């Protein structure tokens, strides 16, 4: 009988606080993760939006090709007009 009461005492004085302490820690950790995940989601959305201009690289590529071709033509003409050193 005494052991039973001692068990009850341990249950109320030790096990319950430990359970509450551990569960509270888990809850606080999970709660602290939520803002970080939301910030990551916002950053990823912003990064995705920033990459909308990546499609313009195809235009840039085309322009660079045309520019280099023009420079090549200009250089070819200079090569004919100017004497070598």
């Amino acid at each position: 009988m005494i052991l039973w009461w001692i068990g009850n005492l341990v249950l109320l004085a030790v096990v319950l606080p430990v359970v509450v302490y551990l569960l509270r820690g888990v809850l606080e950790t999970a709660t602290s993760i939520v803002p970080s995940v939301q910030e990551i989601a916002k950053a990823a959305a912003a990064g995705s939006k920033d990459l909308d201009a990546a499609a313009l690289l195809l235009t840039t590529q085309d322009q660079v090709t045309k520019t280099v071709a023009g420079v090549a033509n200009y250089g070819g003409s200079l090569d004919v007009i100017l004497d070598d050193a």
Partner: protein
Amino acid sequence: MMGGAMAPVLAFAAADAVTILAVGLIVVALVYYLVSVIAQLRKITAGLDETIASVGEIVQKSAPVNDVVTTINQQLDAGVDLLEGLLVKKAGMSDAVGLVDGMYAGAAAAGFRNFPESSTVKAPRIGEVYTKGTLTLARLGREAPIASGNPAGPALRDVEGGSLAARLLYPEIRQTMPTSLARSPVIGTDAPVQYEQRDDIGKPRKRLPGRV
């Protein structure tokens, strides 16, 4: 007899009640905290879903970037090779290095990419021989007299009158003092064209009609 038998029973009943209370409290704590954790985990899951969707978009949008940038770099490399080769071919290695160093100070140390020996060439100080404007015109493709003088000789540019170098780029008028320039009219007693002297010159001024 009844009281003696009931006392242990009541004691056991009290112990049971306390045990049930303790277990109940533990279960309530478990339920409360675990439900709260589940709610937070749901929020985390929703946030991660949004993140994964955005990351998927990033991966999809950035997929062709590598190839495009590689192609652009190849095109620009070809342009640089072409211009470097043309410059060295037309100006010579020494003047080419000097010209580049004149426009971009310190660039001669790096040399040309396709001419490793250019990094060891001592760059002539073309930037001191010609004005910066002349070099700019040369860079823009105008026919500036680059390398017409010896970089090792005295500077062609006059520090006090530096505009002469730029003036030489324009059509010939006076800078080489031509002999067939139009003359100014000659005046005086021995001038080739003589005019009759007016009689009223040197005499008192005539009175105006309105005055008495």
